[in-house]
């Protein structure tokens, strides 16, 4: 895409999350805890046309998101890329990669799982496949069928 066609202005410093599966930008923000966890300016573009079809983009100004923070979004958008911007230049670029464990982000789909009771624990999942993302509840050992529906 030519720079002049950008739907969202370039940022000087910060993080751009690109190639988010179309329609998932809000869920990505939710997983990242943004804007709650940040006072930065956040721009969101949804259903942007690209070579590979439609995509969403999130730009977070003046904040470089750590790998451990962003890798969690591979749960719903395994093809998303993270660009760290310094002085308008892309200084680092990588694709998100699921961590081995997902804690407190996805609710177990099994209604009788102990993690859905009033116990002092967060939901916890082991990642059993990274692409496509497949996770298994640490407590009841079940796999949710639709992960994105179960994001807390």
């Amino acid at each position, binding site marked *: 895409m030519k720079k002049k066609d950008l739907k969202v202005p370039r940022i000087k410093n910060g993080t751009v999350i690109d190639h988010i599966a179309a329609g998932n930008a809000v869920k990505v923000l939710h997983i990242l805890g943004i804007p709650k966890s940040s006072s930065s300016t956040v721009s969101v573009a949804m259903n942007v046309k690209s070579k590979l079809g439609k995509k969403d983009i999130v730009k977070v100004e003046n904040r470089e998101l750590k790998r451990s923070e962003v890798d969690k979004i591979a749960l719903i958008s395994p093809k998303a890329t993270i660009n760290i911007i310094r002085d308008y230049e892309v200084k680092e670029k990588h694709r998100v990669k699921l961590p081995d464990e997902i804690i407190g982000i996805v609710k177990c789909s099994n209604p009788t799982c*102990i993690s859905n009771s009033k116990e002092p*624990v967060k939901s916890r999942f082991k990642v059993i496949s990274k692409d496509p993302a497949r996770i298994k509840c640490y407590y009841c*050992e079940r796999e949710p069928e639709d992960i994105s529906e179960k994001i807390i």
Partner: protein
Amino acid sequence: MSLFLIKMNFKDKDIISIKDFSKKEIDYILNYAKKLLSYADGSKNTNILKGKVLSSLFFEPSTRTRLSFESAMNRLGGRVIGFSDPGGTSQKKGESLADTIRMADAYSDAIVIRHPQEGAARLAAEFAESPVLNAGDGAGQHPTQCLLDLFTILMEKKNIQKNKIVLLGDLKYGRTVHSLAYALSLYGAKLTFVSPPTLKMPKEVIDECRELSVVPKQTSSLEKAIIDADVLYATRIQKERFPDAEEYNRVVGSYKINNELLKNAKKDLIIMHPLPRVTEIDPEVDSTPHAVYFKQAFNGVPIRMALLSLVLGGKI
């Protein structure tokens, strides 16, 4: 190398799911349980767990599992505290399971738990310093049942891997058959699943067997499956899973193990059942050499003795 020469340390290990164990570890437990048979039936006595206290927390009804765990601890010279009805505990006042476990942990050296919710034992293990043994968590795991099933096959057939094993009944919801199919696949046993079409083995379980290079056969015909079977593992079809009684009655009558059916079976076929049974095995089968389900229930004692003594560090 003899299994007893291999150093294995089970002290303080939680026993939550059969999948937490390697085949070598399972072999070790089964061989150790063999050594404990004469202590389990009372012909020899031991006090290796003298001074140790076991918390037996049964939030759900149980006959065999609770009694055999308590018998196992007593046979090893230890003591048991606990409850078999949560009605008399602070759970009734809204106490969390985590807090109940913290208390039991303070009062004892090991905790046995049965709970109606899946994952409860794994949660208990997070809050207890002492080892936790899962005695069944809802429709989830029941590792000591799986071990005693393997032990029964080993004792009756002298090995596990060379058998053709038929798993019969409610293969969809039955927790014992899921773990057992996985464990038998670790040994490379030949598996056939027989169930009504509505209660077939879930795909995840079949995939797990395949990952271990076992390709189970599936059929709804018990008559055909039984002809060359070495082990028939029957399970109860659970009434509570059916929305209407008529549908249940239609399915529940679809398999009946009786002497007529067994005419076509191998002479040394063994029939196992985790019990309780309802109508799936005719009482006339009880007196045949095929019936090993009561022995199987007894085998819960040596297996649970083996586990308790290993996790509490008091080996014979």
